[in-house]
């Protein structure tokens, strides 16, 4: 037993192994979903349950991605950028499954039905905005894209905040009554964005204090 724990700790300490472990853990929600489908555990409306499950995980990974920078700032941990990229890509991954489930599993590629549904459902518009952003960020993940895009890369990737907001609106706008869960997401998002605003505000004030008197 002790031996096993020691092995696990060694694994945890090795950077590559730790990354692989986190990579694997991020697939557990998908595994759980597959098992629930196989064992018929998604309730009376399994397709809706599927949408909620995949959408939820996409939004959760988006939140985790946004949380990395504040955590890094507060704890002064180093080397979390790799994980931020990983979680961001997982948000893209689950969002893509969410979209495919809508098109294929729910609508069986009936484009007429899909078209009307999209035109008439404002909550879906917000889902589309979220997906376009997450898609663009996902495909420009590589270091090569980063080099190609130069300064624009950072500008583009700032759109993740908008994706977060649109994602939460997409979630709560289709509900009838119960707002507890989307409100929780909205609160977390507010805290994450608020933290950044605070950091930005403090930075500006500090830089202002650095300006020599005579320029004032």
């Amino acid at each position: 037993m002790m031996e096993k724990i020691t092995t696990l700790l060694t694994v945890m300490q090795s950077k590559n192994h730790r990354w692989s472990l986190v990579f694997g853990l991020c697939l557990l929600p998908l595994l759980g979903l597959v098992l629930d489908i196989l064992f018929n555990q998604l309730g009376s409306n399994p397709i809706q349950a599927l949408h909620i499950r995949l959408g939820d995980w996409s939004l959760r990974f988006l939140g985790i991605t946004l949380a990395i920078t504040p955590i890094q700032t507060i704890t002064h941990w180093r080397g979390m950028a790799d994980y931020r990229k990983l979680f961001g890509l997982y948000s893209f991954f689950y969002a893509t499954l969410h979209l495919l489930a809508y098109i294929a599993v729910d609508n069986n590629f009936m484009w007429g039905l899909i078209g009307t549904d999209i035109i008439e459902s404002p909550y879906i518009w917000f889902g589309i905005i979220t997906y376009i952003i997450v898609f663009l960020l996902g495909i420009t993940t590589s270091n090569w894209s980063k080099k190609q895009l130069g300064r624009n890369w950072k500008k583009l990737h700032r759109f993740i905040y908008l994706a977060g907001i649109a994602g939460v609106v997409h979630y709560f706008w289709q509900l009838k009554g119960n707002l507890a869960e989307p409100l929780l997401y909205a609160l977390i998002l507010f805290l994450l964005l608020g933290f950044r605003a605070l950091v930005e505000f403090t930075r500006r004030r500090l830089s202002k204090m650095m300006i020599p008197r005579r320029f004032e």
Partner: protein
Amino acid sequence: MIIKTTKAIPSHEITDEHVFKARRTLIKSLFAATLVGNSQSLLAQTNSARWQRLTQSDLSAKTLTPTPAQLVKEYTNYYEFSYNKEDSTKLAQALTVDPWSIEISGEVEQPGKFYLEDILSKQTLEERIYRFRCVEAWSMVVPWVGFPLVNLLNMAKPLSSANFVKFTTTQQPDAMPNLRSEAILQWPYIEGLRIDEATHPLTILAVGMYGDTLPKQNGAPLRLIVPWKYGFKSAKAIVKIELLKKAPLTSWNRSAPDEYGFYANVNPRIPHPRWSQNSERLLGSGFFTSRRQTELFNGYGDQVAGLYNDMDLRHFF
């Protein structure tokens, strides 16, 4: 637009049923041990059914395949209990449904309190297979057991001044968490119909489904069923019926007037402000089967379109 109700089953729905059954059989054969309990309870239901031979009304959609009963029992909105359909099913078991009486008052010659047994002793129950379309864009096909609402109204002898009917549902705060916390809506839940809608032969009071007593979460002991309207119009566990001169303020209409109108007729052309009503997910239809096209008046246009001849349905939604 006229749409017939009694028509052949669309072929994709037939396939769904096969796929559904085949999947179950497959899972059962693989994991028989874990699913034995489930399948036995399904069998038990059919054996112990309370009403074995019921007359099928001409208004029953005999060609439609009913949704598996278990799905209907576990997927029902009952906001007095919970926002969550599965939780509602569990919590609703705390309801007291016996003894039950209904008070009828307002514009009637003989107001009074009517006990459920007395009502039922004077009624011939029949089976009505109806499509039930929820405003949340899902539907199911349910064989209800009940009798026309007009029969009960006639027991109190409505006056000609009765233009609307108001339905008030039971308030049992000890059993209903959202009544205690005054959450979501103003309680009790209120629904209403115009008198011609209420006396329409399609409008029934249901006391059972699938040949058996109505489960508590599905509206026991007695609920309204108005098949051409969104499900929230079909109030559950009714305790009071008032005949009125003017339209009552109904619960969802009061809570969100832009989203839920008084009429709430199923209409694929009039989207809810936040989502489309053009298509619906039929419960029990499998993965990779398309949603079905929603029909005007939920397919009951032949029988009810005349009620709304001179009305702008977009305004009176």
